[in-house]
């Protein structure tokens, strides 16, 4: 086979153009354009927790377990409420018996000695649930593609696809995931996806009599809850993990982990 200088140069140029084409094809779509191509691009679900309003009644946890068919007496739950009591000696006492399924009716923390009210500097309750992160570490580690983020930002688990390896349970920095005792797959809060996609509120939001929990569409800037997140001073949990959580907290204390 002979190759003149002319043919070599021609083919070299052709080859370079052919090689550059796929790269150019990838760059045609900006991230914003790609996002608009995704279904439900006008919705991005977010959540607001007003910790000052929570009284630790646990009605949210009870409603969640019944709504989402989580075995009632198993020590697992999609959402839970934590109690924090800071005492004069500088110690922080925290507990969440059964995820606060039955609320907090006792001054004893972890079943220990009851703390005398005169010793308490501050006490508060913090509801926790899945943060539906923009960059969910639980999804990154799934080896089979059984957990994923939907177009509207909810992280779901495909029960028929999950192999129950438990990587995601360990990867979540918020400890939100657990192993479903009946279905034998990973389980997590999904903001009651079956309710919010029908225009209803999540079961926990509806059950809360004190307005401590709110669902919102972060892309709708006229949504009153979204306006609070945009305008007020809100905090997120474990910012340092870079997961970009979408549950925002009003009045979050530095003791909360």
């Amino acid at each position, binding site marked *: 086979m002979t190759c003149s200088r002319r043919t070599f140069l021609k083919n070299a140029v052709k080859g370079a153009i052919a090689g550059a084409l796929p790269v150019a094809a990838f760059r045609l779509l900006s991230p914003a354009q790609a996002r608009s191509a995704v279904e439900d691009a006008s919705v991005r679900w977010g959540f607001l927790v007003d910790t000052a309003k929570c*009284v630790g009644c646990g009605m949210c946890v009870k*409603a969640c377990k019944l709504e989402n068919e989580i075995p009632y007496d198993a020590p697992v739950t999609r959402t839970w409420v934590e109690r924090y009591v800071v005492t004069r000696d500088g110690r922080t006492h925290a507990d969440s018996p059964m995820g606060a399924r039955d609320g907090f009716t006792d001054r004893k923390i972890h079943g220990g000695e009851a703390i005398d009210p005169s010793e308490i500097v501050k006490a508060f309750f913090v509801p926790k649930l899945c943060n539906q992160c923009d960059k969910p570490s639980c999804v990154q580690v799934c080896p089979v593609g059984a957990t*994923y983020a939907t177009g509207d930002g909810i992280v779901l688990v495909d029960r028929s696809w999950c192999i129950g390896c438990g990587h995601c349970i360990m990867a979540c920095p918020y400890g939100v995931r657990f192993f479903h005792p009946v279905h034998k797959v990973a389980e997590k809060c999904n903001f009651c996806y079956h309710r919010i996609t029908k225009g*209803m509120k999540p079961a926990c939001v509806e*059950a809360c009599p*004190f307005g401590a929990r709110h669902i919102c569409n972060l892309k709708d800037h006229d949504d009153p809850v979204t306006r609070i997140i945009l305008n007020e001073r809100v905090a997120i949990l474990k910012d340092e993990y870079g997961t970009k959580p979408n549950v925002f907290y009003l009045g979050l204390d530095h003791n909360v982990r």
Partner: protein
Amino acid sequence: MKSHVLRPLWVAIAFVALVLLARYFLVPDDFGVHGESFTYNFYRAGNVQEWKDFPVKFRGSAVCVDCHSENEEMLAASLHAAIQCENCHGPGLDHPESGDPGTMILNRGRALCLRCHADLGYAGTSRAAIPSIDPVRHNVDSACIECHEPHNPDLEDME
């Protein structure tokens, strides 16, 4: 080409082909990247609808009062107005359609009231703003509803 060196290669190629063939039949058609990112949006698209079809249990008080208007006015004017019917009466599920009380187990216990009304002594919190009792001293053997009307818990109106 008969070579003992190449023989393992054919075995390897056959194995890969077998895996690809099995994958072709076993992986559903709608499994793939649906969205911006291979990392976060690699899934079976049909599962989204499966989650949307999950049955709703808590129907909301607005559905209850369509038929049960007897306590509606009293409750709306009371301190318990913000509490959903189903918080105490149990999730409605398909009760509005079938009339079957099914999952609706009415909770009359002290434990239900104590969720909010047990005195924890956390001064300055919204919990402390709720009228509360010491559960081990206040009429221990009685159910709360023997004296207090849950649909109108105002102590002034107590009989």
